[in-house]
């Protein structure tokens, strides 16, 4: 494998990172909808979560990819792939963050209400800062899933790390070397995150004792 092919792999890595960086905003929205106390919002968010957690990411990418084209939107593959990932991440992060919001002791919400804080201040200043701490290990765990999931963008023809790898291995006929390197790059991204998540989890357990 020559230098250019390695740089091509690294170019794919850049998109992998960018794809993983998206999606959190949608997740926060879903979590807030799920805990809003308004029935139609909660039902809607629950249906959205059930749909996206019960179907494979690959299918979600396919449906978004072809669905947006049907709606007459001429989008870059990059944009439609990110929309797909944002929707996917929104469902999973929404569920993780709902759990953490509900794990904040009820007394906190009641105290904030007694201080006559409105919904936005209550969430912003009282509930969310505590919920984020609780949710951190699970959020990081999902982030690892998401980084691994970006490899599926390769199947719909988006050139990120995995597809860059298959392209290079088709050129130099060394699938083991190139795929091994690609997997090693994913590992280098995910492993530190996994370790950090496990460390946070241990710390959270000791803190709760």
């Amino acid at each position, binding site marked *: 494998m020559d230098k250019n092919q390695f740089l091509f792999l690294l170019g794919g890595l850049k998109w992998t990172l960018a794809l993983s960086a998206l999606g959190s905003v949608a997740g926060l929205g879903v979590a807030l909808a799920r805990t809003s106390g308004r029935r139609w919002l909660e039902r809607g968010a629950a249906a959205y979560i*059930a*749909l996206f*957690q*019960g*179907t*494979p*990411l*690959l*299918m*979600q990418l*396919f*449906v978004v990819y*072809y*669905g947006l*084209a*049907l*709606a*007459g939107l001429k989008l870059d593959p990059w944009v439609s792939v990110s929309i797909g990932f944002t929707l996917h991440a929104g469902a999973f992060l929404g569920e993780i963050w709902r759990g953490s919001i509900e794990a904040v002791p009820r007394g906190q919400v009641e105290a904030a209400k007694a201080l006559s804080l409105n919904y936005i201040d209550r969430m912003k200043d009282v509930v969310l800062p505590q919920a984020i701490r609780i949710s951190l290990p699970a959020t990081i765990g999902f982030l*690892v899933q998401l980084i*691994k*999931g*970006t*490899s*599926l963008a*390769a*199947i719909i023809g988006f050139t990120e790390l*995995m597809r860059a*790898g*298959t392209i290079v*291995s088709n050129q130099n006929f060394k*699938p*083991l070397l190139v*795929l*091994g390197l*690609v*997997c090693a790059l*994913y*590992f280098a991204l*995910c*492993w530190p995150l*996994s370790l950090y998540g496990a460390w946070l989890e241990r710390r959270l357990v000791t803190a709760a004792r």
Partner: protein
Amino acid sequence: MNYKFDFGPVIEGLPELLWGCAGTLGLALSGMVLALIIGIGGVLLRDSRLAPLRWLVIAFVEAIRNTPFLGQIYFVFFALPIVGIRLDPTLTAIIALGVNGGAYAIEIIRGGVQSINKGQVEAGLALGLSRTLIFRLIVLKPALRAIFPSLTSQFIMLTLTTSIASAISAYELTSVGQAIETNTFRSFEAYGVVTLLYLAMSWMLMQMFARINARFLLYPVK
């Protein structure tokens, strides 16, 4: 939007799609059986006295859990022929699914075994229960009860992961959907229906596991 939806070709292909569902469930089930074997073996090795064996299991778990499944399945698909083993895509997919699920199963089963309080076993010994009774009532059932929820959600995840096996054209739901798409160009309709079929399958599996849980594993604690 002036697109005319046409579900005709997809409805015509429905029998084929249902066979695809069977293929998916078959892959998931065989993958899960392999994963459980790897999981139990891995836990036994991880508790062994030989440090290198323990490290090997930990390295295996970390390597599998931190790399994408697509990479793993490509690896099996391209690596095994080099050592002279040529498998069809279905067997390749089962091996990849089993290895992937196995890494997660090791962690889940280990958590269940660790959740058993040592004092419980000692209490059983003090009551003069036989070894098999202690294993069945004090170790196995509570451990199974502790790991059942994570094991079943792992199984549903595995069922959804089988869709990636379409990348090496193993016979399952996604590849059937892709075949219909290629023949009829009805991409959105084909993939929409396939998505709904996945949803139906995971919902059915969830209901089934909840029933099993309620029937065999739930009992009053106090």
